[in-house]
């Protein structure tokens, strides 16, 4: 019976090594949560970007603040539940800022964005950072 216990323990060590190596490749659950949060933030930026462009089409100017646009989309940070910062950079650009959980400058560089100015392919640093957009219909 003893040799069976030994073999099960050996198999367990092997399985544990596979699991550890797999988690190193797939990313730990904690860092995955941060990545998901940042994806939500970038998705929110993408939605806000469309709202701002719609606003520009109708009123021919950038909104002075995000609350000026009457919209049903979620404009809150997924973690802190506070609003995003919004700055106008004259003449046709604007920035959206929030506190990011991860630095995606390495991973986002792997994606080919095919020239799209989508928020989902923008890079950001960890901590407070801003993403700059330009009105795309110009």
């Amino acid at each position, binding site marked *: *019976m003893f040799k069976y216990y030994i073999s099960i323990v050996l198999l367990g060590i092997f*399985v544990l090594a596979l699991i550890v190596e797999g988690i190193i*490749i797939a990313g730990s659950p904690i860092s995955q949560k941060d990545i998901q949060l940042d994806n939500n933030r970038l998705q929110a930026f993408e939605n806000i970007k469309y709202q701002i462009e719609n606003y520009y089409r109708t009123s021919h100017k950038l909104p002075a603040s995000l609350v000026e646009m009457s919209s049903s989309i979620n404009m809150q940070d997924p973690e802190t539940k506070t609003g995003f910062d919004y700055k106008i950079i004259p003449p046709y650009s604007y920035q959206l800022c929030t506190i990011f959980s991860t630095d995606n400058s390495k991973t986002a560089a*792997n994606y080919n964005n095919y020239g799209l100015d989508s928020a989902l392919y923008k890079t950001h640093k960890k901590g407070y950072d801003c993403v700059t957009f330009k009105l795309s219909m110009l």
Partner: protein
Amino acid sequence: MDNSALPNQNPIPTAVPQSLPPPLTNQPVAKSSSPTMWDAFEHILMFISLYVLATAIVLILNFFIDKWFPGVNVQSYSYGNSFNDFQVTLLRGYLASLIVSYPLFSFFFLSTTKRTMQNPALRNLKARKSLIYFTLVITFIIMLINVISLVFKLLSGDVTTNFVLHLIALSLVSGFIFVYYLFQVREDRKINV
């Protein structure tokens, strides 16, 4: 109430182990230790978790081989060592099945082995025999396909490190299971003859 009831019951369980005969060998088996439905049930669960565990191990090994020794197909040429989201999601799936199936397999394997050693009549359990032979046939077919694909690749001249390592991983896992149960079958026959 419970405390007062317990001391009266205590002498009975302590007396029982002393009166039990050691569960030994070729004696006609007592009715209490004859194979039951529970043994068949445990064997079925053990083999199911064995299949899940072995499949997960092979798939994870294949993933690592693709990472460390990328092949020469278009995909690994274009993307190199980086994996897309879908592959990483698959890896998480393999990891989850490994994490779940290993404890289940260890528990059922140790439990069935222990019971079989205590009670050799279990070796004649119909469920056990059919499962062992079924596993032998399946692992044999896997290894057969493996060797055929190796010969095929040799003949067409495109044997790569990546392919050979995939083959070794699959053959090692299925071969190990095959050899272990082949020995079990031989042991069973030795006891029955």
